[in-house]
């Protein structure tokens, strides 16, 4: 069997998710990684169980987005005839996977947290309360995988690199991207890839300093509730929850967040959950492994001092 993965890049650098996808795909067959980009990007694929790299340097993906990426991946599929196709779960990844499923008449499973050798996918649904195993029964097993779900196999890779040119069809040029603004990153780890996420909500009252300080001491990413992004205190790209990102870190720290169901939908599968909230009745405590009933402006600075003391 052969499997294709779509390599993930962030700020032009290959991201850890690529090796995670390869690790899962390798259970099902020999892995070919597709790079939507040039050969310099392809040359960065140096880790993970990857046999081949195909670079599709298609500028149309920048000009036409998802539709052009569908054409590029369809060309790779026509050449490689994979049994399994793994793509990272993101807005772009899921839409790409969905359109490819239509185009190749294949089944689709989204937001998997594991993939077995026979391409059975594991999903956690209903806010993490139910584990579902499903299997594609028709065509290619197209599966989108949540970042941070497996320990990546980082053995050095020496893949054979080739390039493929694929024209973008006229229908894929119907929607034209006229300008692009990259998300604000601020030097912290990618939210969905981070091992530790510290999030702030309305309780920060707009002052994220203690949240950021604590996150930085732990090497974590900073997230926010919708109340915080709606208020403009933090960018929308940092929102955790149903209409934001789904994160599944080793440690999630919710500060001044009540724990509405829409917020919980995006963080409930975190390994360890910590909550700091003034209100002992806040629903976030129902899912917290460790909760501090208190003011985040007192608790977080003391915790930050505690880390500094341990480090020195």
């Amino acid at each position, binding site marked *: 069997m052969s499997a294709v993965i779509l390599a993930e890049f962030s700020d032009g650098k290959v991201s850890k998710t690529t090796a995670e996808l390869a690790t899962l795909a390798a259970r099902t067959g020999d892995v070919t990684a597709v790079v939507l980009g040039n050969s310099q990007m392809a040359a960065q694929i140096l880790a993970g169980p990857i046999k081949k790299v195909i670079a599709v340097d298609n500028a149309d993906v920048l000009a036409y*987005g998802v*539709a052009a990426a569908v054409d590029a991946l369809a060309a790779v599929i026509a050449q490689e005839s994979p049994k399994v196709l793994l793509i990272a779960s*993101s*807005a*772009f990844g*899921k*839409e790409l996977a*969905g359109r490819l*499923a*239509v185009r190749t*008449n*294949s*089944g*689709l499973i989204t*937001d998997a947290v594991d993939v077995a050798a026979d391409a059975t996918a594991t999903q*956690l649904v209903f806010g993490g*309360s*139910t*584990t*579902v*195993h*499903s*299997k594609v*029964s*028709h*065509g290619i097993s197209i599966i989108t995988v949540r970042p941070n779900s497996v320990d990546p196999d980082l053995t050095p890779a020496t893949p054979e690199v080739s390039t493929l040119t694929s024209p973008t069809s006229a*229908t894929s040029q*119907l*929607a*034209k991207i*006229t*300008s*692009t*603004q990259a*998300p604000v990153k601020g030097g912290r780890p990618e939210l*969905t890839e981070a091992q530790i996420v510290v999030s702030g909500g309305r309780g920060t009252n707009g002052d994220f300093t203690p949240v950021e300080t604590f996150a930085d001491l732990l090497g974590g990413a900073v997230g926010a509730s919708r109340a915080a992004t*709606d208020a403009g205190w933090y960018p*929308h*790209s940092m929102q955790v929850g*149903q*209409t934001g*990102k789904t994160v599944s870190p080793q440690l999630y720290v919710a500060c001044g967040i009540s724990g509405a169901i829409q917020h919980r939908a995006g963080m*409930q599968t975190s390994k360890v959950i*910590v909550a*700091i909230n003034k209100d002992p009745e806040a629903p976030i*405590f*129902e899912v*917290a*492994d*460790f*909760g*501090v*009933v208190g003011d985040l402006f*007192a*608790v977080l600075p*003391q*915790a930050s001092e*505690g*880390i500094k003391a*341990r480090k020195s």
Partner: protein
Amino acid sequence: MKIAVCVKQVPDSWAEKKMNSGRLDREGVDAVLNDLDEYAVEEALRIAEAHGGNEEGSSNTVTLISMGPERAAEAIRKALSMGANNAILISDVALAGADALTTSEVLASVIKAEAFDLVICGTESTDARMSVVPAMLAERLSWAQLTFAGSVKVNPDAKSVEITRVTESGVDTITAQFPAVISVIEKINEPRYPSFKGIMAAKKKSIETRSAAGLAANISAWSDVVDATPRPARGAGIKVEDGGTGGDALITYLAEKKLV
């Protein structure tokens, strides 16, 4: 403009959800209009209102399209009372448990038969949570895909539409000509509450129910659920009052868990 809005009835977000023979058990829980679709209805109404309204006799109509059980009519009624003109409900036992591939096929076959200018969706159904149906519709219809819109600007004379696409990858401005499939994020607007007048008017509006028989759609299953098992509830853990040492207690806990 002829605008279609795809709306879905879903179990209430707060309801406890269970699986029954590999499918979501929809019988035992309260069902509501998918709240993300309310933003799609609101945006369609605003687009119509900005260009002459959608009252009888005006040049705009807002048609709801939904696939689901017959009781989905309740959710559709809510969207009608917000101000949509009419609705088509595709309801058939053959469609129970349909996945996104079938759903998009059924919706696309209905949309194809009418000459819509724009189809507007929510970004996600709160039960399936796949966020793929709008993109699949664009693929099936060979229409422009304008999804994850944080704002929509329509020019009916030029038959053009421009959106800002807001995702984790940043903010893009995207333009296209009609017809186009749009999905809207929840930050785009504040959905209106149905007025008393709207609720009364909705009672008289028509919901045309169709079976799957007349559709040019291939209804099939592309994937199977092997099993579904409830996970042990995430028991409430340790909770301490911050009597001045809450931060220290937290660090002690994290150290025990080897997280610091």
